[in-house]
């Protein structure tokens, strides 16, 4: 494999990892607060549709981004009401929202654009464009690192950098602030938070809302950054893969970065039959398509007993003596 191919592969990895990272961090906030969120997928999907639609109609990607976050927040709100207020089954709520998203996105996009449930291609200010980082060209001459900086790190869209920034920010919030302490506590033992006079409901809603914002960013990136249009079912299971990454990352921010980069790499690899051919392996196209999902299962199977989820995860909080 040539250096060029490798750099291309890493560039694609970073771009594919970005929505996974946003979604994984979304799941992290939610699950750290004790709310399972199988609905990351649906939130990403509505956000992708809303972002691309509004961007296409307004011509501004930033309006699109806001719309994406808004749509995702609405879904997050429903999940919160179902699982926090009414103590419903969090898995089922998430699954329901995924179906809802998959139907509503097509309905709305079809109504707006009549293009088979998708949006027209976005261009110009209606999409996120690549940002050249300083000295990218100047440093290109430095062996290995130079091209890596120029090809992989530089030239990404704004949301990629925001996603990378979200990792240290999340770490800081979680481990250095009062809010983070309470968030971690409520996912481990909500009774401890409640008896300390802090509202379990408010904390959990806030976490669900943060998850909504992050899924909004993930979805918006899908349709206005990664590609420049919305297509039906375009998230293709990324919400679930992000959950697998979250388990792999043991619910920790920095690990989440590495885990999503790994899964992003799998996805990037699946797009490069030529890489396999160069390695002398012949793989049917269908097998390549299935590769990220197969690897997800293998990763999930491989981390036997080592991952301890937040103790109160998935259980509605009921006051008891």
């Amino acid at each position, binding site marked *: 494999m040539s250096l060029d191919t490798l750099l291309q592969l890493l560039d694609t990895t970073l771009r594919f990892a970005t929505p996974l990272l946003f979604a994984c961090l979304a799941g992290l906030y939610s699950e750290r607060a004790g709310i399972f969120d199988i609905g990351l997928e649906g939130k990403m999907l509505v956000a992708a549709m809303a972002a691309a639609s509004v961007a296409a109609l307004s011509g501004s990607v930033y309006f699109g981004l806001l719309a994406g976050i808004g749509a995702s927040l609405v879904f997050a709100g429903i999940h919160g009401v179902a699982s926090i207020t009414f103590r*419903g089954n969090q*898995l089922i709520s998430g699954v*329901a929202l995924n179906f809802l998203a998959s139907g509503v996105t097509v309905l709305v996009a079809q109504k707006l654009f009549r293009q088979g449930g998708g949006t027209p291609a976005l261009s110009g200010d209606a999409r996120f464009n690549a940002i050249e980082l300083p000295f990218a060209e100047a440093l290109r001459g430095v062996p290995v690192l130079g091209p890596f900086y120029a090809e992989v790190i530089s030239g990404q869209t704004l949301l990629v950098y925001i996603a990378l920034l979200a990792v240290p920010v999340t770490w800081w919030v979680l481990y250095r602030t009062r809010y983070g302490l309470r968030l971690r506590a409520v996912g481990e033992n909500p009774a401890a938070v409640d008896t300390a006079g802090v509202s379990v409901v408010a904390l959990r809603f806030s976490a669900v809302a943060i998850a909504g914002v992050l899924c909004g960013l993930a979805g918006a990136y899908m349709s206005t950054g990664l590609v420049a249009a919305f297509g039906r079912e375009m998230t*293709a299971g990324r919400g679930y893969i992000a959950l697998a990454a979250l388990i792999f990352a043991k619910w920790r921010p920095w690990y989440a970065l590495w885990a999503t980069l790994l899964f992003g790499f799998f996805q990037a690899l699946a797009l490069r039959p030529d890489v396999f051919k160069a390695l002398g392996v012949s793989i049917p196209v269908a097998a390549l398509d299935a590769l990220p999902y197969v690897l997800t*299962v293998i990763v999930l199977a491989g981390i036997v*007993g080592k991952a301890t989820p937040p103790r109160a995860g998935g259980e509605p909080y009921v006051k008891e003596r």
Partner: protein
Amino acid sequence: MMQLPRWADIVLVPLISLLMAGIIAAFVLLAIGESPAEALTTMVNGALGSPYAWGYTLYYATSFIFTGLAVTVAFHAGLFNIGGEGQAQLGGLGVALICLALPWPHWTVALLAATLGAALFGAAWAAIPAYLQAKLGSHIVITTIMFNYIAASFIIYMLVDVLRPAGQMDPATARFGPGTALPTLNEIPLLNLIFAKPVPGNVTLFLALLAAWAVWEMLWRTKLGYEIRAFGKSEKAARYAGISPLRVTMIAMMMSGALAGMMSVNNVMGESGRLVQNSSEGAGFIGIAVALMGRNHPIGVILAAVLFGALYQGGAELGLWTSIPLELRIVVQGLVILFTGALDQMVRMMLAPLFARRRLAV
């Protein structure tokens, strides 16, 4: 917790949930500038307005009974099987391989063999996530979803590279032989008095009803069912009672997968007569809504399956006669799952005052 009379819990809660799902769907339609009234009439007429319509509704209902039962059996074991879609597609592969393997002399023999093939393939596909869950603790919801994606790719590979006859363009198997053609409802004596025109509903409907009865007997009459239900309520307590978690998880999931797989007898063998891409068309997912709506009871599953059959058929009619996309079906499906499975406590809270007041009045 809210305590409602049993009948209200069983009958009223699902119906109110359905009503609320309908109301919200109507708002969605209004929001995209369509007429809910027109949609409703089109759907009701298209799904229930004539024997011909019923022939379609029952055809879909047959598939949904199977997938609904699949989710039900897993639910009773405390397992959330979202992999019905993949298991159904694999079941379709089993049906196709059996149907293409021999020049079957009569449909009865073929039906028996194909059912077995469908069940085996579906069960096998469910066995892997079941084993990963029981032995390694891999989250079964995520693994079964992953297996849906993997199944889709696997079927494409089989259709494109293995089973496609030479010279055929579209990714599908060859047509099955005449000995595999299942009698449709209009070909069955007595029923042909009702169904005059050819309909896709076929004898598999009776197989589905048989399966529902068998699941009921299994869950509430056999030791296996007892163990499944006990395990589903508490894994810890089940261990105390000498129930093996590995065994129950494997058996329940494989039964679930087998039921999901068996739906393919209906569509692959009974309707299309060959295996095509995405043959199950989301029926595996609808099983979740059907099971929840049917309160995880076989009778409830049958009723909910008919209801969703009507929704499906009615939705297809929408696509034909109006500008409303078929995806409205998925919206309703999602809403029903939301209200019956996650917001059921809210529905109960809404109903509770009615019953409280009545009790006071008595």
